[in-house]
């Protein structure tokens, strides 16, 4: 396999909830290689999303260390982390999280613009790649859920980030659409050599992954086959 | 014109000390006079540009005086003055100092001073201070109220600065009011809002000031009064009453101070002045285009006054004449035929485009006088730009020549009217 692109060392995230201490992430250590498609399974509340947010620098770990592309997130500071999100990370959310006041094209272009791009052409191409040709100027509420998620994928891909983090990308879609989206997402990532981390509890995600992780009570274990998950 | 209508409304019963008949007449007359007065008021804007309003009419010197008064008086239909105003119809028994005072039974009256002055460095100055009284009514309606109008008083004040070649003038106007203006009947004591001419002990004190212009002079007659015309009855036209009473002090020793705008301290000056007093009720005629009036003092002690009345048809009025006063005070009348006046040059005003005579040769063959005179300052023209534009020239002059074969120097005053446009747009 290739070099490491994401590494965590004894990662902890604790919460203080009404006097009693809890932890969402307990000593997680993972090493994810460039170009890997990783599926992260876990029940609701197991800490998956928290883990993703930590990786994205949106949340700060209570203890431990995260290295993205060999650089310590903690050392980057807020500005560095913002730049990291701009340049190295793409996000795909369960609820799509498109800006409701921007059209499909504008939502995609927004990501480009944040990295300093002024040319809308890649955004148009990205929308074509996700099969939304002709719907560039629609607002999110004028699109179906699947289409919205395609926009979100285009938004994540358009700037060509080395890493895409997907939080339950199909969680809000019917299974047929979900499958299409998943296929699309994985296909695009493979084509671009992008590392993809998908958080999910939909089992079919497993079929697309190079590597399977399961998160239980804030800890991550390696799973070697899809079958193991159902046990 | 229906006078009755406004009359009924305007004259309240309690004010009626006229009879009904007279009320009508008086009202019409007053109205007429007032109209002219009002034009005058409207034509002269405040403070800055005084003298220059008015029109012409009279033949006599009376310079601005005449100018002002003419506006009121010249016009037809002159009030049925015979009814209330006395007229100059016969030669007068003069009695001084009483006759230096006011003659309120005559409608118009003026006290007119002009003079040529020098300071310690022999710089030349000219001054003019004139007081006018004009009767609007023979009696005030409400004698107990000081504001009730009988006469209106004006005064004109001008200074000619021969050093800086500048001309300054100012004017004042007031009804008698509570001691604001007036003229005593017993002797010369004329005042208009702080400007005054008062004769006491045979000497006349003149006082006037306006902003930086100021004047405080003491005048002492060096010769007795000279009566013009027939014992002071000076005819202005062929009709009855077209005349005024008119006398002069042609030579007054003058000393005092003047304040000239642009200088700081008052200047001590001395020189000679000329004084005219004239009163009458109906002395103007209206066929005149203007007049040239010249009053000169010769260095040999003779004083000469000549005037040409220019008629509208271009001729000179036959009544035009002059007066010559000898050093001993005796005077003689100079008929028009005895006066030769030649204009030597002209000056054209930039303001009014009026073309004025600017130098004269005057010959009085019968008296052996031949002099040439020219203005001390060219621009002694008064121009008004207000509703009724009237323009005339009035100023100090100097010159030289010969008298009885001897060289003399000359100074004096000249008044020129009717050269810049009509003699008053009012006509």
């Amino acid at each position, binding site marked *: 396999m290739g070099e490491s692109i994401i590494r965590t060392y004894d990662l902890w995230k604790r919460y203080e909830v009404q006097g009693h201490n809890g932890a969402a992430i307990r000593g997680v250590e993972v090493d994810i290689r460039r170009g890997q498609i990783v599926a992260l399974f876990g029940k609701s509340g197991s800490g998956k999303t928290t883990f993703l947010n930590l990786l994205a620098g949106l*949340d700060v770990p209570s203890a431990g260390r995260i290295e993205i592309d060999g650089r310590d997130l903690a050392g980057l500071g807020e500005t560095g982390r*913002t730049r990291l999100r701009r340049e190295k990370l793409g996000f795909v959310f369960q609820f799509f999280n498109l800006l409701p006041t921007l059209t499909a094209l504008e939502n995609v272009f927004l990501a480009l613009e944040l990295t300093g791009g002024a040319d809308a052409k890649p955004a148009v191409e990205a929308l074509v790649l996700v099969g939304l040709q002709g719907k560039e100027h629609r607002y999110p*509420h004028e699109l179906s859920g699947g289409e919205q998620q395609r926009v979100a994928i285009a938004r994540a891909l358009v700037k060509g980030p080395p890493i895409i983090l997907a939080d339950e990308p199909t969680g809000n879609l019917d299974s047929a659409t979900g499958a299409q989206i998943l296929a699309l997402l994985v296909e695009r990532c493979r084509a671009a050599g992008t590392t993809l981390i998908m958080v999910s509890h939909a089992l079919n995600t497993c079929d697309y992954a190079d590597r399977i992780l399961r998160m239980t009570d804030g800890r991550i274990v390696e799973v070697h086959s899809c079958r193991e998950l159902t046990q | 014109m229906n006078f009755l209508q406004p009359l009924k409304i305007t004259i*309240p019963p309690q004010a009626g000390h006229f009879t009904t008949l007279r009320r009508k007449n008086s009202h019409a007359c007053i109205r007429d006079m007032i109209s002219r007065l009002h034009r005058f008021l409207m034509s002269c804007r405040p403070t800055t540009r005084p003298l220059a309003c008015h029109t012409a009419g009279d033949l006599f010197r009376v310079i601005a005086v005449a100018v002002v008064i003419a506006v009121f008086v010249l016009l037809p239909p002159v009030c049925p003055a015979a009814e209330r105003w006395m007229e100059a119809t016969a030669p007068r028994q003069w009695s001084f100092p009483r006759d230096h005072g006011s003659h309120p039974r005559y409608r118009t009256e003026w006290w007119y001073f002009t003079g040529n002055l020098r300071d310690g460095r022999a710089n030349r100055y000219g001054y003019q201070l004139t007081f006018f009284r004009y009767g609007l009514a023979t009696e005030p309606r409400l004698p107990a109220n000081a504001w009730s109008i009988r006469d209106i008083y004006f005064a004109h004040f001008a200074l000619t600065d021969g050093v800086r070649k500048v001309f300054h003038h100012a004017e004042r106007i007031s009804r008698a009011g509570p001691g604001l203006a007036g003229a005593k009947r017993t002797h010369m004591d004329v005042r208009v*809002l702080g400007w005054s001419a008062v004769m006491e002990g045979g000497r006349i004190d003149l006082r006037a000031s306006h902003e930086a212009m100021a004047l405080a002079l003491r005048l002492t007659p060096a010769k007795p009064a000279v009566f013009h015309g027939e014992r002071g009855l000076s005819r202005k036209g062929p009709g009855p009453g077209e005349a005024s009473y008119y006398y002069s002090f042609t030579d007054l020793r003058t000393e005092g101070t003047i304040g000239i705008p642009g200088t700081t301290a008052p200047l001590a000056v001395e020189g000679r002045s000329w004084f005219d007093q004239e009163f009458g009720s109906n002395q103007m005629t209206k066929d005149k285009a203007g007049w040239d009036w010249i009053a000169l003092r010769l260095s040999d002690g003779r004083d000469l006054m000549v005037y040409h009345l220019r008629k509208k048809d271009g001729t000179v009025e036959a009544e035009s004449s002059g007066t010559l006063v000898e050093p001993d005070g005796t005077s003689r009348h100079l008929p028009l035929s005895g006066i030769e006046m030649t204009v030597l040059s002209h000056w054209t005003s930039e303001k009014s485009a009026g073309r004025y005579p600017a130098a004269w040769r005057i010959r009085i063959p019968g008296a052996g006088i031949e002099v040439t005179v020219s203005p001390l300052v060219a621009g002694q023209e008064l121009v008004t730009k207000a509703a009724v534009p009237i323009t005339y020239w009035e100023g100090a002059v100097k010159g030289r020549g010969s008298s009885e074969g001897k060289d003399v120097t000359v100074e004096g005053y000249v008044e020129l009217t009717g050269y810049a446009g009509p003699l008053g747009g009012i006509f």
Partner: protein
Amino acid sequence: MKSVIRSFLRYLVRRRSLSTLHLLGIAVGVAAAVGMTLASRSALRSLEEAVDFLRGGATHTLERPAGPLEEEVLARLATDPAVRSLAPVIDRQVRLEGDEKIRLLGLDPFLDREVRSVTARIGRSESDDARQRLFSAFLFDPRAVLVDEGTARRLGLAAGSTLPTSQGSLKVVYVFPNPTGEPLIVADIGHAQELFGLRGMIDRADLVIAEEAPFRARWDKGFKIESGRQKTETLTALLGAFRLNLQVLSLFALFVGVLLIYNTAMFAVVSRRRDAGILLAIGASRRQIAAAFLVEVLILGTAGGALGGLLGYLLSGLLAKVVGEAVSTLYFFLKPSALPWSFWNLGGGIVLGAAASLVGCLPSLLELGRVEPVRVLQGRTASRGARKTTNRVALWGALCLAVAAALFLLASLHLYVGFAGAFAFLTGASLFTGLAIVWSVPVLKPLFGSVMGLSGRIAVGNIRENLGRTSVAVAAFMIALSLSIGLGAMIDSFRTSVVWWMNSQLRGELYISTKGDVHVPEDFYEELGGIAGIGGIDIFRNVQITFRGKPTSVTSIDASVLQRYDRFVWFEGGGENWEPVKRGSVIVSESFSRRFDVKKGDRITLDGVDGPRELPVTGVFYDYSTEHGVVMMDRSTYLGLYRDRTINSLGIFIDETNPDREALIAEVKRRARARGLPVATRAEFHRRILDIFDGTFAVTRSMRILAVIVAFFGIAGALMTLFLERRKEFGIFRALGFSTGDVARLTVAEGVAMGIVSFAMSVIVGTAFALILIKVINLESFHWTVFYHFTLQPYLVTGLTALAASLAAAAYPVWSVYRKYPVVQIREE
């Protein structure tokens, strides 16, 4: 960056109705401030213009310290070397039919042309002939007058008309233009003397003076010399407290406006919170988000400000009129003309709107900066934490109140300190809103539950749950209602105090003529004195003077009569205070005492005709006749000081027990009318004073209305936002079986509940505010004590206003419910 901004700005378009409400809210707040400022400025400018117009070219005026000036003085003035021009003036009033009073100037057209153009313009537009006739009539007809255009038009006068007045019929000879709009009659000075029985006297001389200092030195004793600037200053000073109050009123309106903007900004943040989360996640920096938000707020603020500037300009026309009327009744004639339109109005409005928006959005901006994308994207709202912060905010409120209290203690330092205290108080009070809502829920829930069932309970719950949003709207509304209650209660208390004062001080049976009115001939006073059975006649004269450089007034009365019949209320002592007054000492009003710090036992120096004179002060009495203070003295003292025999008015006192009372009253009335003097019974006189009083507060009332309008937009905006935010819940409601009517009721209930909480708070805050106005602001600006007096009316009116505003504010959401609810489904965004 552009896309970020664009994404925010599109909300303005997408939520048009909400944006419109917010825009209008800002606009009205700004309009109130701009309108009041402009009205105040136009009043001031008109004042200067009026002074300039009548002053013309005069640099100074010379008059006696009190009463008319002997005309002989003019001749002396004419010879004074410093005097370039002088113009005598008689400046009086005549009464027209219908009781209208008009200023009449007596002028000398000859002297006046050096100073003013009025008389020189007689007949200007006419033919020569007509002009001459007019001028002649003016000079010689004792009844001839000139009348200004406005008055002529109003009264249907033209040249030739007859104008009946208290001084007999006047004949209009000419109508002249008066740019100041002041009704004006001009007569020849001699005629004016006769009209007013002033032969030998004038009121003042207008002068053009070259060198002021030597002139003043020569005319120091017995004369009052005022430069044009001083005149304007005096008039401006007369208006000082009045103007300041206007300005502060407009600031209150702006204060509510800022709260409103805060409200707006906060709602904007709420709806942008999720977007901010997304943007952060995809790599936008917080600064970019803050900037985008700022742009949005500024656009709203700028547009609202611009609109406010425009509205304010329009409003200023109305306000100026109201202000002009109040000033005319109270001080002197003033007819402010609308200021010409200037783009500065727009600029000022924009600056104000933008600045207020910046201030108002600052807390929200900070909140936006703290957005945690993780939580936001998971759909958690921050308002849940509001409960905790409620107490903290209330603590800040308490601190503000403490600051306010401290400021009130220091209020005597300067009026502004008092005003700062009032603002601190209002700020403090508004910070308690959250707590008030929390406390009121246990009361409101069962109340609304019992009236409206489940909808009502949910509504109250919603308000409680969305505390962060509702509390600001409630605060803005509450402050506006408090202003309304406070101003209302203050006016009512004041009115009650005035009534009390009138009943104690103005106890005459009849009042003949009034201050500033037609003067009463002295022989009429003597004539009345001859009627047997009259208990006493108070002979009243009031003049404005300058004391220690400030305008104030002197009143002369008959001390013996007042001692016997009136019931002055004194700071110390009682009726015995009159004894020394009869012997030459003076008493002063509360305003005078406070303004000049003069107390019983002090001595004051007044400039009389014979120079300065020292007078002992032997009493201080309550008085509301003028905030500039009154020095009251017996007529004998007054005559000695000023030798002014003018009488403004007579008060007729008749013993209650006199059996011939009615007959006596009728007799006095008859004789007064025969003289053409206006007569008022005590009741009529009191009513007139109250009319004037009410007129004075017209401005205050209009500001009250403005505050409520601002508040309306606040509460409407709040309801609308709540409604929009909650629309997605509608699917759930529908699924649960709520009918359209239920949801509509829910919406109405929310509005009403917020209205009720606001009103309940405003009852307390408003009353406290009234007390502040009375005990601090009024005392410091008008220097008089007003006694708080409870009346129901302001509370009732405000309560109804609150209810109406809440219902009206709910109108759009309810309409929207009826339109959209039937088709909503459960759906995530």
